[in-house]
């Protein structure tokens, strides 16, 4: 009864934030099947946790926590195959989008570089690209800001090197 009451409201919220959920799936999974599985799992976890959402934090913070927790602690994608710079391995969405060529290439390079980061580093990159403040990052990840800033600088440096390698066609380090 309670479920039926909340379902339309929940569906509206998922609908509104689904681009964000797809971004998490694209960041953590290289194959279409894995992305669909992860999307399904995140939606199920969101639905299960929804009755406990009291509005103490921003809805987007709550959503990031669940999406990233599900993506990070899921065992299945440990067996994923590595993504390379070859076109067939780049997410279908990227091949599909009519972006300016240069922008598209840069995004492809970014995804290839991100693939080589750890699961925690991926979460940090995502929150950084989404322009989350360090306060919000701390709330989502549970890591103190001092530590976050140092980690973020290290990731930027790592990505700079990784994308340099892909720009020069050396691919994986």
């Amino acid at each position, binding site marked *: 009864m309670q479920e039926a009451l909340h379902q339309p409201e929940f569906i509206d919220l998922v609908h509104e934030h689904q681009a964000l959920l797809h*971004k998490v799936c694209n960041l953590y999974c290289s194959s279409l099947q894995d992305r669909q599985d992860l999307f399904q*799992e995140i939606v199920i976890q969101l639905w299960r946790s929804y009755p406990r959402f009291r509005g103490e934090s921003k809805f987007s913070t*709550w959503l990031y926590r669940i999406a990233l*927790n599900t993506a990070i602690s899921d065992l299945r994608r440990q067996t994923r195959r590595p993504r390379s710079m070859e076109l067939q391995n780049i997410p279908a969405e990227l091949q599909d989008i009519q972006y300016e060529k240069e922008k598209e290439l840069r995004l492809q390079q970014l995804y290839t570089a991100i693939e080589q980061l750890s699961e925690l580093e991926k979460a940090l990159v995502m929150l950084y690209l*989404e322009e989350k403040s360090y306060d919000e990052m701390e709330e989502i990840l549970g890591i103190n800001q001092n530590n976050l800033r140092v*980690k973020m600088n290290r990731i930027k440096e790592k990505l700079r090197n990784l994308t340099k390698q892909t720009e020069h066609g050396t691919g994986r380090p």
Partner: protein
Amino acid sequence: MELEDLKTIWQDRPDTSRRQQSDRQQSGRQQTSRQIRALLRKKSRGLVAKMKRNLFGELILVLMIYIPAILFYLFEYREKDPATGWALLLLLLYFTGYYYRKKKLLNAMQRPDAAIRANLERQLLTLRKYIRSYTTTGTILVPVMAVLSFMSGRGMITGPDRWAEIGIAALVLASITFLSWRANVWGMNRLYGRHIKKLKGLLEEMDEEPHTLN
């Protein structure tokens, strides 16, 4: 390429394929609502959800084996061996408590709305408790069942050589218990070892002190 420069491209980019977008444009919100409703009807394929399903399967199996056996010993066979019936009933009660504890642990593992560090910590702690509970119960159960089977089949050890017989029985029991413990530890490690390693690795990475990062 600087990460800073990619922010705009990242935030602008739609994250669904053109086909998905056009589908949505055609049938709008209703289509997405239907898709989300369909997703909600599906079973979770996460590790904890699978563990819960396995636990429920185990419970059904135990009930199917124990209830007929208890009924048989308590009603049909009560003249000859009522003690076995009561012993099995006690075991069933123990099992029920054991399943309740495991279910509680699994429920505690599913709190993805917590901050990521806290959630990983809780998962690791709970998974370790779960494994300990499984290994201990699995190990204890073997000698208990062996003694019960022996008592219901042969009764007490009597006769002049009874101490020698008790000594041999104890030795066999200890060996079986040790083997069962090893098998349980091996099985748990095979099932959850990789996951524990991953959780530990993530927590270590999160806890790295800033001065060691540079």
